């Protein structure tokens, strides 16, 4: 269990460092981290399924800049580990992992405050002419603290929590797990709605509806939708931005033909 916990903690480090030192290549997302968990624990199919479900739920949650609880990226790793290591369903595992991720988020607040203090250390280092020390605060200490912020909660959750989760799962009634299953579908709808709330505007609503109906009635898959969407968008933007430049030119032509001063002459 110790070895497994350490490996999962290290997957957590990959997850947090993706946005810290790789500019956010989306390796922090549940779809990727759960696949890693699945590979590490020798159950890839579960890893993929849990990853896909959690990815959908957290689709609208984007950790840009400041932290917004709950940290779904951390919760995803713990959930997937519980789902594989115990008899828990994905939904039950998620319900148990979210409180841990909320605690993890609090550690995140501490880390970001601590780094604010390191900024002052860097300020002083520059005053003293110790220039290397200033940027080491960033790449060495920043990286280290953020890594620990993910490693510690995940390690502890898996190392100490797995047996507890197993004993909880064995007494959970069926109506509860079925209810959580519907709840997870609501969460998926919520995740997508969160995304929509930032993207949707009056002019473009029709394209959301179009995407929905193309799948609903014609049963096209997402790849097909993405390809058609790019074609439609390129054609329409060509038209839109040509005519946007057009009226000025046309109006100019019109003025050449029709000179209002002619009447006065």
């Amino acid at each position, binding site marked *: 269990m110790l070895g497994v916990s350490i490996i999962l903690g290290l997957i957590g480090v990959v997850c947090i460092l993706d946005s810290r030192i790789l500019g956010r290549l989306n390796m922090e997302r549940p779809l990727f981290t759960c696949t890693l968990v699945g590979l590490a624990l020798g159950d890839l*199919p579960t890893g993929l399924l849990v990853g896909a479900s959690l990815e959908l739920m957290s689709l609208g949650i984007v950790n840009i800049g400041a932290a917004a609880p709950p940290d779904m990226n951390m919760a995803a790793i713990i959930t997937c580990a519980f789902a594989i290591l115990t008899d828990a369903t994905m939904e039950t595992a998620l319900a148990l992992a979210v409180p841990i991720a909320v605690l993890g988020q609090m550690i995140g607040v501490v880390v970001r405050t601590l780094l604010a203090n390191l900024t002052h250390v860097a300020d002083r280092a520059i*005053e003293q002419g110790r220039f290397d020390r200033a940027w080491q605060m960033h790449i060495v200490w920043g990286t280290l603290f953020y890594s620990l912020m993910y490693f510690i909660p995940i390690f502890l959750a898996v190392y100490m929590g797995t047996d507890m989760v197993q004993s909880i799962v064995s007494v959970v009634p069926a109506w509860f797990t079925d209810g959580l299953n519907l709840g997870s579908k609501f969460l998926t709808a919520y995740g997508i709605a969160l995304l929509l709330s930032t993207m949707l505007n009056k002019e473009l609503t029709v394209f959301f509806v179009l995407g929905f109906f193309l799948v609903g009635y014609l049963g096209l898959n*997402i790849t097909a939708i993405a390809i058609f969407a790019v074609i439609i968008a390129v054609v329409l933007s060509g038209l839109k931005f040509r005519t*946007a430049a057009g009226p000025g030119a046309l109006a100019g032509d019109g003025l050449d033909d029709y000179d209002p001063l002619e009447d006065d002459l």
Partner: protein
Amino acid sequence: MGEKMAVKKRSDFKKYFQFFWRSWNIQASWNYERQMNMGFLYGIAPTLDELYPDESDPVQRQHKQEAYERHMAFYNCTPQTSAFTLGLAASMEEQYALDRENFNPDTINAVKTSLMGPLSGVGDSFFQGTVRIIAFGLGISLAQQGSILGPILAIILSFIPAWFVTWYGGKLGYTMGSKYLTKLQGGGLMDQLMYVCGIVGLMVVGAMVASMVGITTPIAFESTGLVLQDVVDSILPQALSLLITLVMLALIRRKVPTGWLLLICIFGGIVINALGILV
């Protein structure tokens, strides 16, 4: 420490690589006070070290110290698009070092500050709002079929544009600088890009509602043999998924707090499922 006298000029490739890599890791010390300040300093440090190599000379040392302090100011930007600002700031520092009389160093931070907003806006909506949605829309649908290609494809599709924008952003910022920025803003190119991204993103999200939420109703009338879900499917497939998504959207628009919404999802799910209304 003997090295500091022998700082060589970097090759262009090394310079561009540093803009690239040090933009990607700009969030390593993200903090509540000045956010990415130390990240930006780390990015521009090689340029400053190159411009003021001799710390034993008090004048150079003074200039170097001023420059380091200058770049400890508040900064926050999408890492990929931030490379453009880093390249531009590096070229401005070089100009300033050449001609200290006629160049006001305050303009360097003024340029950084003025670029943060627009570059973050475009960067976040492009990378998180469009690239991610397409990459993960495809990735999720493959993963649901049990294919490991799903997550792999999602990461490759995320990587390519991120690499491209960061690498060429840094290069453009450094070589063409402010000239390119006005061209970019003036030509309506940004508006066109945002328009295309908006359409593609929304169509993929619409498709996701229809293919990935999957809410159905078990309600059936035994007396008439009518299964409600069959009726719904024959009129508008996935109508319930769309309905629930729109309800969630309405709740979000009414600024219901996130914590409450999560509780509504979980407990609503348990209650509605127990009542036999939805599955």
